[in-house]
């Protein structure tokens, strides 16, 4: 129990240091842009594919249920609600946690155990700012963008499936789809995704930065960053959905 609370204390300190360092110059613009590219552009292909498949599969699964009530016309709005309110931010966050979170944990862990972080420190560079702040900023900003993109790809997958089966045109499909979506849904999607991105960045960086005991520590850091961030994403999803439904709707 003591270890658990010490860990919580360490993470709180780590997050506090992030906020302290993030707003104090000099800023590592180049590294932040580099991380935007690493995290964003390199996740695009998998996000495109999974977004599209999610849209197709969800449409196929929903059709049979709605057909039972003779309500297949509701497909576009049902799919849009599901994708924008839940699937896009959640699936994007889980994919980024798996792809990027583990990468951050392993990379920083490896740098820690091979003394590369100490090497930065003694060359009078601030490794926390260069390695941690840049990655957390990048994940926080890029996950909402990826989630919106995934939502779009999911809707495209859904449209193609609906068009093939119900011959609904693209204008009608999107009119129906967005008839049930309001600004709050988009706002919550962006907010949720930013929270998930921050969680992925903090978890990956914290696990990597604390790594020790050689290659075993690197593996553990990569593993911890994925498992813990996925778990936290689900917890945050539950909390945010409850808050939105109780206080904003």
């Amino acid at each position: 129990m003591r270890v658990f609370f010490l860990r919580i204390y360490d993470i709180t300190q780590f997050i506090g240091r992030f906020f302290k360092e993030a707003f104090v110059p000099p800023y590592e613009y180049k590294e932040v842009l580099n991380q935007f590219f690493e995290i964003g552009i390199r996740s695009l292909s998998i996000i495109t594919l999974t977004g599209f498949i999610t849209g197709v599969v969800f449409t196929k699964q929903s059709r049979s249920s709605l057909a039972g009530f003779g309500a297949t016309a509701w497909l576009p709005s049902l799919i849009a609600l599901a994708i924008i309110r839940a699937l896009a931010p959640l699936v994007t966050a889980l994919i980024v946690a798996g792809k990027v979170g583990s990468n951050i944990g392993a990379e920083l862990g490896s740098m820690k155990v091979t003394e590369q972080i100490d090497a930065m420190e003694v060359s009078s560079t601030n490794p926390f700012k260069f390695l941690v702040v840049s990655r957390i900023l990048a994940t926080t900003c890029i996950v909402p963008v990826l989630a919106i993109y995934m939502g779009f790809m999911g809707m495209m997958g859904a449209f193609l499936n609906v068009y093939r089966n119900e011959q609904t045109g693209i204008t009608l499909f999107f009119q129906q789809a967005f008839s049930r979506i309001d600004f709050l849904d988009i706002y919550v999607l962006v907010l949720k995704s930013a929270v998930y991105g921050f969680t992925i960045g903090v978890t990956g960086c914290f696990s990597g930065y604390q790594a020790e005991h050689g290659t075993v520590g690197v593996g553990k850091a990569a593993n911890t960053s994925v498992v813990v961030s996925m778990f936290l994403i689900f917890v945050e999803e539950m909390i945010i959905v409850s808050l939105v439904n109780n206080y904003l709707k």
Partner: protein
Amino acid sequence: MEPSNAVISLRNVHKSFGKQDVLKGVDLDVLKGENVVVLGRSGSGKSVLIKIIAGLLKPDKGSVHVLGEEIDCLRTRELRALRSKLGFSFQNSALYDGMNVRANLEFPLVRNRRDLTRKEIDEAVTKVLDDVGLSQTVDQMPAQLSGGQKKRIGIARTLILKPEIMLYDEPTAGLDPVTSVDINDLIKEVQQLYNTSAVIITHDLTCARFTGDRVVMLSEGRFLRQGSFGEVFKSEDPKIRSFYNYNFIENT
């Protein structure tokens, strides 16, 4: 009382990790322009000592002065400014895996000398690479370099800031005898070319004999003896004798 020309002064330095006392009251002065070798067996506290000098670890007790500044009293920004005058060559070189040699060398320079132009940075990179004899590796990644080349690039990365003090952590560890001799030569060249003082942590007697102006023997957290290489190993202290004999047998 520390000598007036001392660039590093340690007084009664203690360091423990949990219940393990690693340093038990160490005193050391490194004079300007002097190479001091700290010899000792694995686990004797050599690396802890050098990390305390670089401010990477804090001593539990005692004082550490580097270039006249007491490390423990410095703020983070002041400590970073002081570190730009220190060069630290790590045991495993600690080159940044994701950057090629050029980016590794530029890294400390662009962050400490924001006034430099692209041309000046390129010239500085070319010069340090020439000094360590590895101009041809400039676009290679660390994974493409041999152990000896990594050590040289690691040293070049510290030299680019023109340090006043060099700290070498096991500079010849894991290298074949011929490459070790090359690294020993390089350490002497650096001392002459850059007019540096140095602390060299090693358990390699050849390295100690060749690179050290003075040798101190660290055992179980205390300095047993210090002086020239010959003076230290004239000692009949069984710990020093066994260290010498072991190295002699190992090297033969």
